[in-house]
């Protein structure tokens, strides 16, 4: 499992610490097909390797798109890359949002912070095959308006008549005319049929905890709620042991799990 060389072809800066890299295989071949929710291991020469979700459109596999928050050694080094830089890449790995199985159902996508990145491919897929789904809802919360990812796209999605898009922030100055409050507050006003819904949730663990509770409160069954887990990860192929989550390995059994499969683990602290 060696990193394959990729070349950065586009860089987008979103917020002071978050950016998107688009990269294509250095040898000119197409990037391997991926499922929404899967991740890659990105390697920077001599610096290290980190798991990063794929945030691009699964319909376009010429290049991989990764939205990254600079929080430490490797992600900060990734933040300093220039167009043309070479990055090693292994993947894609892991389980995915069940967009196929969800056909015919309503879709609720709930994201907190950078949790929108791994959900965006699911949204792209659903919007590209809009007729296959019932009601579609995107609920997105960040700390401040400055932390919103993909702002232009959000505005575009909000203009769609067939999709409900709600955005909220925890704190805002007076120039923010949108909602203020945590993302879970958006659930009561979301229009979907709880008994025919698949919900995809990604964000900090506390956010996922409360979102799942609210969804269950509206009657969504635990097997129709999907969450994406995050743990320290070194190899992504089940050898290093770091990403163990109860009996599962997040790199191969996750990161996306039906909540029904892990609810007992999710309630246990420090697992």
């Amino acid at each position, binding site marked *: 499992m060696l990193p394959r060389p990729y070349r950065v072809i586009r860089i987008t800066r979103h917020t002071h610490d978050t950016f998107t890299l688009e990269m294509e295989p250095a040898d000119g071949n197409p990037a391997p097909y991926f499922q929404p929710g899967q991740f890659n291991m990105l390697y920077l020469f001599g610096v290290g390797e980190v798991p990063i979700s794929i945030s691009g459109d699964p319909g376009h596999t010429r290049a991989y798109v990764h939205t990254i928050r600079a929080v430490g050694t490797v992600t900060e080094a990734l933040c300093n890359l220039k167009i043309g830089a070479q990055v090693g890449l292994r993947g894609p790995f892991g389980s995915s949002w069940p967009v196929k199985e969800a056909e015919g159902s309503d879709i609720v996508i709930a994201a907190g912070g950078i949790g929108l990145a791994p959900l965006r491919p699911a949204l792209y897929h659903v919007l590209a095959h809009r007729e296959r789904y019932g009601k579609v809802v995107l609920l997105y919360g960040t700390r401040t308006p400055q932390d919103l990812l993909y702002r232009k796209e959000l505005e575009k999605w909000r203009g769609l008549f067939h999709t409900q898009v709600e955005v909220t922030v925890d704190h805002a100055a007076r120039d923010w005319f949108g909602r203020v409050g945590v993302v879970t507050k958006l659930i009561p006003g979301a229009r979907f049929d709880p008994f025919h819904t698949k919900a995809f949730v990604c964000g900090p663990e506390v956010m996922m905890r409360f979102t799942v509770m609210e969804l269950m409160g509206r009657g969504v069954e635990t097997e129709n709620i999907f969450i994406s887990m995050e743990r320290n990860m070194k190899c992504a192929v089940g050898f290093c042991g770091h990403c163990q989550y*109860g009996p599962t390995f997040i790199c191969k059994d996750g990161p996306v799990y039906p909540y029904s499969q892990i609810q007992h683990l999710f309630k246990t602290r420090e*697992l």
Partner: protein
Amino acid sequence: MVDTKTLVEKGSKTQEKKTPGAVGLLERGAFDQLFQVLQAQGYTIVGPTVREGVILYDELESPDELPIGWTDEQEAGTYRMQKREDEALFGYTVGPHSWKRFLFPPKHRLFRATRGKDGFDIEEDKYDGPNYAFLGVRACELQAMAIQDNVFLGGDHVDPHYRSRRESALIIAVNCGKAGQTCFCSSMGSGPKAGTGFDLALTELISKDGHAFLLEVGSKKGNKIFKKLPIEKAGKKEQKAADAVVAEAEAQMGRQLDTEGLKDLLYRNYQNPHWEEVAEKCLSCANCTMVCPTCFCSTVEEMTDLSGDHAERWRRWDSCFTMDFTYIHGGSVRQSTRARYRQWMTHKLATWFDQFGTSGCVGCGRCITWCPVGIDLTEEARALRASDQGELQTGMQAEA
């Protein structure tokens, strides 16, 4: 039991099929010839030897380096060597080393990368070390190898570094004639007699009549060695003597682990307050994970030279007892010793079944002996059973 042979075969085409069977007697006086035959076939022999008061595994030139006439006394938190009354070569149990240090070395390079004109090239490390002949592999250690085979060779991804070392190794097992105070292989179904997974197996026979080894062939590779040795015919008498040796070890088993319903017991006791009691003693020193022959967790380190044009990735053993192990942005997930001990023991005795289909413990007792404060997982399992929280609180029952 995991079938080692099939797993190794899965990873390669070169592994030979097992030809069960041939049995014979090798006199102690002819034992040197085993070394000569192995060396002539290009093997580097690794076996037990005495170093600074402990029996370790290291490269051996001659049988004189074996722990002749030595044995070990083990208890929770203590290990002592002692003289035997005879001149047995394999009259001890297991020390702090296990064979994993040769198949999955504590530190090894995964690849080298070189910066080029407009990017970098990566070259994977290929194993070019010796073909090892492991001499003195115990039944529990064969089982531990089968378990690690399952981790590194049994899934969708095969680890090439483990595979090349594993495939080239010759395994000479030794049936135990003595069990230690911390041993419980019979509870785990992994010993004391070597069942499968060896090329040759020996049983050391010492009596007033003499000193010899009953040899059993486990594979074609083993047969090639066997045929070159001055083997004498073994009769019913020798076979009986060998059975008695193993029976004696079985009778001496110092520890026991009740495995009945153990997996579910652990799954329903994530919240048991007993974990706090263990945590008060545990130093989080990671000794138990380092000596355990099945623990496989690792981390990687990136290195660059001064010019910045060469980079390397190294893999080294890691432990779930360290704080860094679960670090994610914002802090470690398993902050408390309670959570870390719980993770370790639950992995060994419960989650391993769901991950790999077997127990992660073979009952070798190393973690008990080498724990500086003498924490004993058989005791912990007993205490957990005594304070069982009853109803299933967590685990994977939703899946089942």
